[in-house]
């Protein structure tokens, strides 16, 4: 059985592969012109396995091709009436078939299916909703992000990565900072994190203060992302803001603040960093010393002087930082 299926697939591959490739690459300038589909292929394509093979080929090509070739793919897909198959899959009760159906539809730019796909953004199955959300972005770009207003499940790091990647294919919406500000007040912590990432990614400087407010969020991961975002949106107040915020943070976020200060710190933080050299925590000590040496003008000299004054405590720290920064 398995062998039969394997061989059958192989024979289909032999017959169809070249034809598909050729069809995709054909330069059909005339919008209305149709593909010529040889009779024998039509016959083969009555078989479900063969049709799925073609869909898979088209999907994987579509992921890599744009422009005319991309249009050709969609056209071929429509002409072979493969949409029917995808729709059938989308009604499946098996999650992986349904998710596959959604994926095929959005990749093939079947924008009329937007509504039906949208219905799945809160599916109980992680993969169905992930594909639905990705599909929405794929079809309607930044406008599609409105699903963030209603999404009930957490967006995993992985999904956020996928959405950000999907957004890259679209033109940046001029100003969507209002939306970001709205999402920053979401009850879904992962939506806040994602909004913060969007703000950073698309440099939405106008949400700086709203992002700063996220520093008071109860979820450490939200604050972590807020610190990261603030680095990207930094203005003259940010470094002091973070330094002041430092005592209220947990270890992980404190370390991040020090890393951020290494990039955006200024003379104003000299005392703050100098004081941190005296704490017992070596990791903090090292990060503070690094920030001091790198971000503060004259900080390296200051560190050296301190190391001479307190060799037991700081000479090792100094040498470490010196080596790490290749000063």
């Amino acid at each position: 059985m398995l062998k039969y299926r394997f061989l059958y697939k192989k024979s289909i591959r032999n017959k169809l592969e070249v034809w598909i490739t050729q069809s995709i690459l054909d330069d059909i300038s005339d919008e209305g012109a149709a593909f010529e589909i040889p009779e024998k292929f039509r016959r083969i394509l009555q078989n479900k396995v063969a049709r799925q093979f073609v869909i898979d080929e088209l999907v994987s090509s579509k992921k890599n091709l744009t422009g005319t070739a991309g249009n050709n793919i969609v056209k071929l897909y429509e002409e072979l009436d493969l949409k029917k198959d995808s729709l059938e899959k989308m009604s499946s009760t098996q999650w992986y078939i349904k998710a596959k159906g959604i994926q095929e539809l959005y990749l093939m730019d079947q924008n009329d299916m937007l509504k039906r796909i949208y219905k799945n953004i809160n599916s109980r199955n992680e993969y169905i909703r992930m594909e639905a959300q990705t599909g929405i972005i794929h079809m309607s770009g930044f406008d599609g992000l409105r699903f963030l207003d209603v999404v009930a499940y957490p967006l995993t790091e992985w999904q956020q990565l996928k959405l950000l990647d999907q957004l890259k294919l679209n033109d940046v919406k001029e100003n969507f900072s209002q939306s970001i500000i709205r999402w920053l007040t979401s009850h879904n912590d992962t939506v806040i994190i994602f909004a913060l990432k969007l703000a950073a990614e698309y440099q939405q400087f106008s949400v700086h203060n709203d992002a700063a407010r996220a520093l008071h969020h109860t979820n450490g991961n939200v604050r972590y992302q807020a610190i990261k975002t603030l680095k990207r949106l930094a203005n003259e107040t940010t470094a002091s803001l973070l330094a002041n915020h430092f005592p209220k943070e947990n270890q992980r976020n404190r370390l991040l603040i020090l890393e951020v200060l290494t990039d955006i710190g200024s003379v104003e933080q000299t005392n703050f960093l100098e004081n941190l050299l005296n704490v017992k925590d070596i990791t903090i000590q090292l990060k503070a010393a690094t920030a001091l040496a790198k971000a503060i003008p004259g900080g390296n000299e200051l560190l050296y002087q301190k190391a001479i004054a307190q060799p037991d405590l700081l000479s090792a720290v100094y040498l470490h930082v010196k080596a790490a920064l290749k000063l």
Partner: protein
Amino acid sequence: MTWSTIPEIFFEVITALVFIYSALLVIVYVLIALYSIGGTKNYLRKNSFTDYRLLAASPHIPSVSVLAPAYNEGKTIVENVRSLLSIYYSNLEVIIINDGSKDDSLVQLIEAYQLEKVDFLVNYQIHTKEVRGIYRSKNPVYNKLVVVDKVNGGKADALNVGINIASNDYLVCIDVDCVLEQDALLKMMKPFMEQTDERVIASGGVVRIANSCIIEDGRLVKVKLPDDYLPRVQTLEYIRAFILGRMAWSRLNGLMLISGAFGAFDKDIVLKCGGYNHNTVGEDMELVVRMRRYMEERKEKYRVTYIPDPLCWTEAPATYTILGRQRNRWTRGTYETLMLHKKMFFNPKYGIMGLLSYPYWFFYELSAPLIEFLGFVAFFFFAIAGLIDWSFFFLYLLMIIFFGYAYSAFAILMEVTSYNMYRRRTDILRLILTAISEPFYFHSFVVWSAIKGFIDLLKKNKGWGEMTRQGFAKKTTPQVQPVLVTATTATTVVASADLPERENKQPAVLTVFLLLLRVGRKYTGFAVVLAMLLLLCRFVEWGLDLYTYGTPLFAAKTLMISVLQDASFIVKATVALFIPFLVLYFIHKKTAVVFLSVLSILLCLTQLSLSEYFIKTLVPLGADLWSYSWNDIRQTVGASGGINITVTLLLLLFVLLSVAALAVIPKKIKPGNATALLVALVYTGLLMSGFTSKAEEWKPGPENSNNLAINKTNFFIAKSLEYFFPMEPDVDIYAANYLLSPTDKSIVKFRYTDEKQYPFLHVTDSSADVFTPFFDTAAVHPNIVIIAVEGLGRAFCGDGAYLGSFTPFIDSLAGKSLYWENFLSEGGRTFALLPSLTASLPFASNGFLEMKGHMPDHLSLFSILKNNHYQTGFYYGGDSRFDNMDYFLQRNGVEHIVDEAAFAGGYTKMPAVNGFTWGYDDKELFRKYFETLTAAKEPYCNFLLTVASHNPFLINNEDVYLQKFEARMNALGFSDKVKQQYRNYKYQYASILFADDAVRQLIEQYRQRPDFDHTVFLITGDHRMPEIPMNSKIDRYHVPLIVYSPLLKRRSTFSSVSTHFDITPTLLQWLHRQYALQIPDTVSWLGSGIDSSRSFRNIHAYPLMQTKTDINDFIMGDYMLNGSDLYKINTRLELEPVSNNALEEQLKAGFDRFKIRNTVIINGGRLLPDSIFKRFAP
């Protein structure tokens, strides 16, 4: 019999355990495999939606530190590092930890990657050996690379250094010689990016075998199946373990092991847990278990995930030496990890981990080789002992082997349908061939290596003993000051004194021997205490016996034999207990000690209880216990006044004493190796020399002294074993030649009609009628009244009774009657009375009554007489449900069953002990009898069974009969000394005098009645009362038979031997001849009829059944067989041991003939054809 059955029982138990274990193993494996396949399928489906390129390019990817410890890897290190540096991953640092290699690894790395030593402040968050230097490359191309040079401290220590130095959020620990797939880290890190409320703390990957694969520039170019056998079979092993195992555990969130060769961890949690444990060789598993435990104990949600893609390729050991060492290490690692976290074992607090994963690892991964090995050793011994059922064995072996094949084949199939790494058809074929050879060679080697691991563990006992006490919770990270590793420190490679593993030169046999000796030394102290306690029990038994009954006969000899029998038991018990102690000792010392102590105390308590029983009944308790119902036991024990507060307190005191002795004395006794060896040799010597079996044969002489000398526990255990594991007659029960009659002409033979269908059915023999010459013929059918007096033995009844007669009335009646002085009961207890006397029925397994609903159709005196228009009745002062008597009587259509329940007001019960009484005494019984009889029609056949002379011998008007006892002793002319001895049994004798008096009243009252002149009275005992010491084995059965009637023409005394079996055949044959009663012409009576020879002889060949559980006695001619002891029966019915093999064989053959027929009945055979039964059925 007895102890020779121990190996058999042991064998049965072992077989059953192995069977259960393997059945569970098979089930668990199948479930895991199926679950794993489902998990893998799901993973592959999810994977089809994942584009890893996204991850490779993203700045949001988690930061990873790869930790690769290296020790003496000079030959390949440069290439290996190149491979690691070529991994696709953007946010990465690669930390190579040179664990004090003695070769030039470091120098090579320095040269190849242009390394320079840098100043680095090492934060020793986890305590490790000293870091000698940190190296980074001057070439920015290698900026991911960090090389650490440290003092040698083992793999765990090296990894801990890596953890201290790592600057990223996640750790990926790998073996430096592993070749990773390019996208390995992307796939490995994805689960961490998918975590939601469940924190992903670790993720494991698949490890595949790289031998024979083509690797270029640190990259796997072509996958090939290893050419060498060892790596190939390991390939199969890995496929099985990873494809059919890990995924299931991950899916259940119960994964306990992430291979040390490739695993990813959340650094935060690793640090909180204190890093790798360098005290175990199983550091990879231990860390995962500890991290999980950390999360469980903080009740934080977490997952340990698993990636089924083949991501990591490693060189497998290609020689047996290295492979053996690896497996040895795995065993030790697993053991150490499980011991460190034994708190989780079946601990619901730890969820799946505690309830499933840990037990699985314990019972299967860890114990399987051990069980297999022990199974093999046991098999070896069983084979020598001839206990193996070879056909079963081979079937079983085949089943296991084929399960293994099926499992491997399934794994290969799954590999082909999922990842299909080995694409050549010949590769798959070779894998299958490898699977076929695996169980015979590779598997045995792996098991043996694991066993060596266990042996190594035992040798290092002290070391890990301390480690196990260290515990998880108390583990603290020592506060170590950070140390700056400066660039100026010398980089010379210093040979380390710490070698990771040292070879062991001691031969295995010696190791095992020394181990046994060590356990033996510990055991000796307990053995001494056990011996002391058991001797103390004997002391108590003798004290009680002396107190209750005075000095026994042949006291000195009896005492000596008692001690010898005890010694024999002590030897056996000590040796037997050593085996479980040994096994437990290896698992957990304290458990072994507690187990042994508890068992010793239980043994002594059993001994004391059995002694108490013996003192009360004068019979050692055998397997009877098992065949009485709980109610029967309660009634018997309750009525005999068994347990009261004094006894309880004394037992408690004894327990306290034992506990103290067991706690203190073994610590004081610390024998050296030589002493322990000597003790062991003496014990095994005694056991092997046959001392123990000989000691059990020694007997002082008189039955009571014999019984006193017996070690009661030994006897009880032996009898119980015999009961539960009976030795079937080892013959084909249908073989005609075995059913042939005896050759001895003097023995009565039956003419059997259809032995195969009805083993006991034979033609009725008219010679059974011996009454006709003695009786006048009455005008009407005579009434039959059978009086069975409880415990009425010939020892104290009738002329010439060796204890003197205590039944003056019955004696006087015997003088006017047909009197058989050498009559025998068929049973040693009441259970055999009714079926033997009224129906001459076989015993089946536990007495005919015990068959209850399974009783085959049968006829009896009752049913046949009823068929001849007799009224039938049964009268008993006790509860007729006892021994199922009521059921039997109902089956036989007895019309009037009058027992305890029928006695309305106006009747006085016997005095109660602990609220228990047997019911109404004999006088009340007879009073009730006459009350019922007035209404009865004639003719009648009534059976009266008395109960007053039963233990505890409490009767109404006791004082009167105690006085009569004194008077009777005077009349018998006893000296004061003799009287004093008899007074030890005064209650017994008084109850007999009472019974005799009751019979007197019965007969006198009868004489007043009109039906008296045509009534026949049969008076006998149900068995001889055992509570007065007995003389011999046959004494137990020796009862009188008195046939008294006004119809008698003349009186006579007979010395010939007959038994209760003979009464019904004789009575019926007589009534048939003299009164033309209808009786069947073929019957299944065991008895041939009473022998009316006046002189002593025995023409019968009958079995006798002393207790419900053993049919052990057989008489034939002048001989009696008791077990394997042959005795000659003399004219006074005393036994004299004889040794005559030919005779013994003859009796055994006769006994077997009965047993074979009896077996047919036990197995549902029939006694009578329907034609006969239906004609006479009640």
